[in-house]
C-alpha cells in the first residue's frame, strides 16, 4: 500500500516524464506529418542520433565549457565570500568598493565581453566574463546574511568579550550560511550562462572551443540537428550544476535550517 507521501513523490517524478513524452511525441508527429526538412526543424530521433554520432566532438566541447563554468564558479565563490567578509569587517572598504561591484553587475556582460577579448587572452577573457556574472549574487547574498545576524546573539558575544574574529567565525559566518548557499546556487547557473555568452562573443575556432561555439558554428553551417544536440547538452549541464549545488546546500543545512528540514505533520 502506498502512503500519501510516497504517492505524492511518485507523481512529482511521473508527471514531468509524461509531459516530456507528450512533447517529444507531438514534436515527432509534427515533423513527420508536415514533412519539415531537418535544416528547418529536425525530429527528436535525428537530434538523438546526432548526439550519439557527434559525441566525441560535443563531449570535448562540453568539457571545455563546464571547466570554464566550474573555475568561474569557484573563483566567484571565494571572491564573493571574501569580499563580503571584507565589506562586513571594514565599513570603509564597503563604501569604497560596493558601488563598483554593482556597476560590474548591472553592465550587460555581452557588452563587456568584446572589450575583455581585446585585452586578455581568449581563455582568460571567457573566464573573466563568467566570473563577473557569477560573483555578484554570492557577494550580495553573503553580505545580506552577515548583516542580518540576531542582535541578541551579537550582544551575547559582546557580553563574553568575544574578539572580532570569534564573532565572525563562530557567529556571523554560520548565521550567513543559508543566504551564502542561496547565492552560490544562483552563481552556479550564472557561471554557465556567463561562459556561454563569452564563448559566443569570442567566436573563435580551434581545439579550445566550447559548446556555445559549437552552437554558433553549427548555425552558420545550417547543421540544425547539431545545434539542438549541443543545446540539449548545455541544458543538462545547467541542471546538473543546479542539482549538485542544491544537494550540497541541503546537506549543509539539513539539521537546523527551516529551508532544509522536513516537517512532519
Amino acid at each position, binding site marked *: 500500500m502506498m502512503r500519501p507521501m510516497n504517492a505524492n513523490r511518485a507523481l512529482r517524478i511521473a508527471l514531468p516524464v509524461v509531459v516530456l513524452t507528450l512533447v517529444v511525441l507531438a514534436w515527432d508527429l509534427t515533423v513527420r506529418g508536415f514533412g519539415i526538412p531537418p535544416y528547418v526543424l529536425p525530429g527528436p530521433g535525428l537530434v538523438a542520433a546526432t548526439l550519439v554520432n557527434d559525441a566525441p566532438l560535443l563531449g570535448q566541447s562540453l568539457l571545455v565549457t563546464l571547466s570554464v563554468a566550474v573555475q568561474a564558479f569557484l573563483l566567484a565563490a571565494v571572491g564573493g565570500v571574501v569580499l563580503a567578509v571584507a565589506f562586513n569587517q571594514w565599513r570603509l572598504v564597503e563604501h569604497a568598493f560596493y558601488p563598483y561591484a554593482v556597476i560590474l553587475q548591472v553592465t550587460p556582460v555581452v557588452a563587456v565581453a568584446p572589450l575583455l577579448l581585446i585585452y586578455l587572452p581568449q581563455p582568460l577573457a571567457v573566464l573573466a566574463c563568467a566570473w563577473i556574472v557569477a560573483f555578484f549574487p554570492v557577494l550580495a547574498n553573503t553580505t545580506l546574511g552577515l548583516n542580518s545576524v540576531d542582535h*541578541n546573539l551579537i*550582544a551575547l558575544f559582546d557580553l563574553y*568579550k568575544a574578539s572580532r574574529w570569534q564573532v565572525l567565525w*563562530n557567529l556571523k559566518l554560520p*548565521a550567513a*550560511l543559508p543566504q551564502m548557499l542561496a547565492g552560490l546556487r544562483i552563481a552556479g547557473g550564472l557561471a554557465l550562462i556567463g561562459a556561454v555568452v563569452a564563448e559566443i562573443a569570442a567566436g573563435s575556432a580551434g581545439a579550445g572551443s566550447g559548446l556555445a561555439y559549437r552552437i554558433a558554428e553549427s548555425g552558420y553551417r545550417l547543421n540544425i540537428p547539431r545545434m539542438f544536440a549541443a543545446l540539449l547538452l548545455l541544458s543538462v549541464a545547467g541542471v546538473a550544476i543546479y542539482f549538485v549545488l542544491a544537494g550540497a546546500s541541503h546537506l549543509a543545512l539539513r539539521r537546523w535550517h527551516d529551508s532544509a528540514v522536513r516537517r512532519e505533520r
Partner: protein
Amino acid sequence: MTTALSIVNSPLVSLRNVGKTFDSGTVALAGLNLDIREGEFVSLLGPSGCGKSTALRIVAGLGTATEGSVAWAGGAAGDIGFVFQEPTLMPWADVAANVRLPLKLAHADPAAADQAVAQALARVALSDFAHSYPRELSGGMEMRVSIARALVTEPQLLLLDEPFAALDEITRFRLNNDLLAVWQELRRTVVFVTHSVFESVYLSQRIVVMTPRPGRVFTEIAIDAPFPRDERFRTSAGYAGYCRTVSDALGAAMAGAAA
C-alpha cells in the same frame, strides 16, 4: 530548610543616579538608584517600556548610561550570565555546543568545559538532549538551554530579562521552580526583570517597583516568605497578601506618573 538570606549583605553592584537618553531623544531612565546585593534574588517590576530592560543591559555592560554611575564591589565588573526574552540560541549548533559557547569564547580547557557543560545541562534536566538541535526542542526547553548557557561559567551575577514571558503558564511555573532550585544551590546573585506581579512575588526576596518612563525606583518591597518555595506557597494566603501589596504599589507607581 533554608530561609531567606538576610538582606543586609553588601551591594555587589550599585547604580547611582543612572540616566539613559537614546539618540532618538527617548528618555528611558532618569535618576535610577539601585543596589544589587550579594547573593540576593531581586526582581525589577514595572510596566512595559519603563526602562527595566534598559537598566538590566546597563548592568550587563551591553548598554551605557548617559548619566550617573554603575559601580561594582571590588572595582572591576564580575562574570555575568544573561538570559534574554527569547532563548537566543545558535540554530546551527546543538544544545551542548550552545551551552559551551561562553567557555569556548574564553578559550577554556576542553576537558573542564566538557564537565561544566554536562553539569549545567544536568541542572536544567536536559542531559538527554545534549545533541539535539534548538529547533527540535519546545519553547520551555529552549529557555532551559538558555539558562544552562548563562550558568555554565558559574557567574557572580545572573541577569534575566523577562525570560518566561512567552511561555505557557504550566511551563512558566515549572521554570520558576527550576530557577529557584538553581539559585538555592548556587547562591549567586540574581536580577530578574518581569512585568508579572505574581511571578515577582513567587521568586523574589525583594521587588523593586519602577515607575513608567522615564524609569526610576518607585518603591521596594521585601518578600519575607521562606525558601524553598513551592506550589503550596503559590496558593497560600501569604502569597496573595504580597501580591496585593505589590499590585497596589505598581498601581500607585502608574497613577503617580499619570497625575
